[in-house]
């Protein structure tokens, strides 16, 4: 698992509104909180 102090791996992924979203687009502008979760439409 990634650790505090590591450089976050980059990504570019489709979102549910049809956009391409990358980590790089927020660099120097915003912090990012990634919420990883198991699967859509499952009990939480």
């Amino acid at each position, binding site marked *: 698992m990634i650790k505090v102090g*590591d450089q*976050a791996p980059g990504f570019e992924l489709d979102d549910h509104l049809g*956009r391409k979203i990358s980590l790089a687009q927020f660099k120097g502008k915003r912090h*990012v*909180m990634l*919420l*990883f979760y198991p699967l859509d439409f499952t009990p939480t």
Partner: protein
Amino acid sequence: MPGVERLQARFAAAHTQVLGVSVDSKFCHAGWGDALGGISFPLLADFQPKGATAKAYGLFLDGPGITDRATVIIDKDGVVRWVEAVGPGGEREIETLLSHCEAVDKEHGAGLSAWPKAKGWSGPATLYVKSNCGFSSWTLQARSNLHLESAITVKNVSEDAAAKRELEGKAGKGQAPCLVTGDDVLHESADIIAKMTAAMTDI
């Protein structure tokens, strides 16, 4: 996710962009966001190759082929400042995560400016849809995820002959989905969703 949606303004005040990530497709995400009452922050499809981003973060669970329930807070320079995995069946405490984001912002957020505000939806609009149509569903889910239910009226041309005639009058053809905003007529679902997204989000 709905808890985070309700606290979007406070995450924004802490200069923090929230992104959901799972191995589902973007279409599945759209339906799931709709089912949760509307999710306007990005839900990312770590879909092809499956789980590649989760694997890069060491959060992919090979056995079930899903992602751990885990939170990673990354500062504006791309450095990881907080990580927590609670297991697939675990729960996240959103207020606690918000306080971690606020702490990261206090320590590493010097020089960040306030976010641009979304311009919001203007003018009455009608979304014409068809029954049993994936493109129509996709636009309806975007309307829900962006909380545009009261701004955009929906008419189903498969069930409502008057609506079909109305659409033909405004758009010159009965093809649905179609979003009509004043004189602006959009037929492509991607264009319809892009117009909604541009009005209602700041990215």
